[in-house]
């Protein structure tokens, strides 16, 4: 190929890419379903499944004064620790119908979710009744200037309340003597390490899945429509009656898809980063590699399934036949490990599973470039195989 020829061909490719890009981006529906919709889905599902519901627990506080005479209490003017704390820190709601007042403390915690404790002053008898009914899990009282907690040690929920409460009322002491090998048993340093750090939340699981799904959908629907529709319109036939290079036609379709998918995934990541602070824990080069391989795999499959038909209905059917099973099996939204054991090895070899798992391993597990070499290579081979077979049988007329 001489220089002039190469320039001609570049011009062909550039014009084809530009035409296809315009064709795609000038359809508002494409922008919505291809780019905005996945982001909305991530936001919706991410918020629905990532935010902890508020926890509400009832606590009975034994009023010693209830037993003693009111005078003594007033005379001594010894306000108990609990009372003092509640009066100063909690919001008080007067009890109606002669019921005792309630105090409410809400602990806001972005990581663990909010916890609200509602304290009701009562006597031992009532407290025990409510404990037995399961209305409350823990009873507090005070003896000799020390707050005591009464609960069933085998009740983990009560245990949880105890830990929280003891932290509120005795901020300077850990509920247990915590000793660590490395750290000095400085009690202030003892803190809860919640497991909801970026990487283990549902949103972290979801975003790579949505990306993989987006790549598959956009390649399969977009490319097969781009080919079948042009065949039905006899535009393909018109185009190959010119000196157009046939492979350039397919390459341009693929290029436009990859560009669109790149935009989609980048925006999706950006929004998820803004809202949920998700991160890429592994290798960005590896991410790009598996992203490209995924595009090529699904682009190849799309070319293969639309290599003959000129009927968009048949095309839709074929796309559905490929896409639907993978949508169900490949664990885009929920882990596929819930499927029967015998099916797992099969599921893991589906292109969408390879792509989803590959993306997740980079986003969540921090896999490096080498870690995604295998799925990348498999996806590439799938793409190249389907591409060559599709091209071989491609009906231009």
């Amino acid at each position, binding site marked *: 190929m001489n220089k002039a020829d190469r320039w*001609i061909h570049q*011009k*062909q490719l*550039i*014009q*084809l890419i*530009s*035409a296809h890009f*315009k*064709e795609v981006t*000038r*359809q508002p529906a494409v922008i919505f379903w291809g780019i905005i919709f996945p982001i909305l889905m991530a936001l919706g599902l991410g918020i629905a499944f990532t935010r902890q519901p508020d926890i509400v627990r009832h606590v009975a506080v034994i009023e010693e004064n209830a037993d003693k005479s009111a005078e003594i209490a007033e005379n001594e003017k010894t306000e108990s620790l609990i009372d003092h704390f509640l009066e100063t820190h909690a919001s008080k709601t007067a009890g109606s119908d002669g019921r005792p007042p309630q105090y409410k403390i809400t602990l806001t915690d972005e990581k663990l979710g909010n916890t609200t404790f509602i304290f009701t002053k009562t006597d031992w008898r009532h407290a025990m009744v409510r404990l037995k009914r399961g209305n409350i899990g823990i009873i507090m009282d005070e003896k000799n200037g020390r707050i005591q907690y009464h609960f069933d040690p085998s009740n983990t929920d009560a245990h949880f309340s105890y830990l929280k409460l003891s932290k509120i009322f005795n901020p300077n002491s850990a509920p247990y003597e915590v000793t660590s090998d490395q750290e000095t048993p400085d009690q202030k340093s003892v803190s809860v390490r919640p497991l909801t750090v970026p990487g283990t939340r549902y949103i972290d699981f979801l975003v790579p899945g949505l990306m993989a799904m987006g790549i598959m959908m956009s390649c399969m629907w977009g490319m097969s429509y781009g080919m079948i529709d*042009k065949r039905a*319109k*006899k*535009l393909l*036939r*018109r*185009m190959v*009656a*010119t*000196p*157009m290079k046939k492979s350039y036609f397919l390459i341009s379709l693929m290029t436009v898809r990859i560009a669109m998918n790149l935009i989609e995934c980048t925006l999706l990541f950006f929004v998820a980063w803004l809202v949920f602070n998700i991160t890429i824990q592994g290798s960005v080069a590896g991410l790009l590699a598996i992203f490209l391989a995924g595009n090529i795999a699904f682009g190849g499959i799309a070319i293969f399934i639309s290599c003959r038909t000129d009927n968009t209905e048949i095309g839709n059917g074929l796309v559905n036949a490929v896409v639907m099973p993978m949508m169900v099996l490949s664990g885009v939204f929920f882990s596929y490990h819930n499927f029967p054991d015998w099916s797992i090895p099969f599921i893991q070899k589906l292109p969408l599973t390879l792509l989803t798992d590959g993306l997740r391993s980079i986003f969540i597990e921090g896999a490096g470039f080498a870690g995604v070499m295998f799925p990348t290579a498999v996806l590439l081979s799938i793409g190249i195989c389907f591409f060559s077979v599709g091209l071989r049988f491609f009906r231009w*007329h």
Partner: protein
Amino acid sequence: MKNEPVIDVRNVHKSFKNVYAVKGIDFKIFKGQSVALLGPNGAGKTTLMEMIEGIQKPDTGDIFINGRKWKGNERDLHRIIGLSLQETRFIDRLTVTETLKLFAAFYELGQARVDEITRIIGLDEKTRSYVVNLSGGQRQRLALGIALLNNPQILLLDEPTTGLDPNARREIWSILGSLKKHSQTSLVLTTHYMEEAERLCERIIIIDKGQILKQGTLAQLVEENNGDKVIEFAIEESGTAIHRQRLESEFQIVWDDNGDKGFITLSRIENQLPEFLNVLNRNNLRLRHLECRRKTLDDVFTSMTGRRLSE
């Protein structure tokens, strides 16, 4: 090499699953000629054109373009041929200019040629409209413009004006008319409008059921067999065989397929029309319809097949 045909179709046959579409067609087209393939729907025109265009392959027979077969010469032949298919729809949301630019790129042509073509096809005002918003006539002109982009030696147009209103049709005709005047392009077009064939092409090939019925210049086709005038008539209670026989004993009559209308070809209306009316009178036949006119290609077609060109 003046006499080497630009298109040489030799005994070409083509059949589909259960349709024998082209049954042995032969013709040659020389440089600068314009030829119409005239025939009704289903005659096999498109199939024949697409074989010439290299889109379909003949089952048997050969097609030479500039003395070369398609096989192995696609790249070169695509460069010298311009064509429009019977119906092509371009990319909906691409503008006229963008569509022309895309196709221009296939031929290594640039903006200058795009502008030139836009002027030729009279779409200057529409350059920024999406293809989907063009009228039928404008779309056909765009298709024609794309066919003309590479300044083709051979222009192949499949039904360039079918389905267009008379105005839109005349616009296409005037573009092609001026093209003929200013270039040496050889033109082949298919049509089932005889006016189109008469107006644009010096040579006409009438095709029916996959075969050539007749070919020649308009004058040759029309004047063949005793005369270039026609009486077209219909009589009351036409169908009856007796009436027909009586007329047929005196005139050579072609009946159309329903046996409703009769056609008499003649050369001198002044003599023969009174004679015809006399015969009707004597036989007590009453006319429902009578028309005397110049013979048309449609008449030629009807005289050979009993059918009209365009139903």
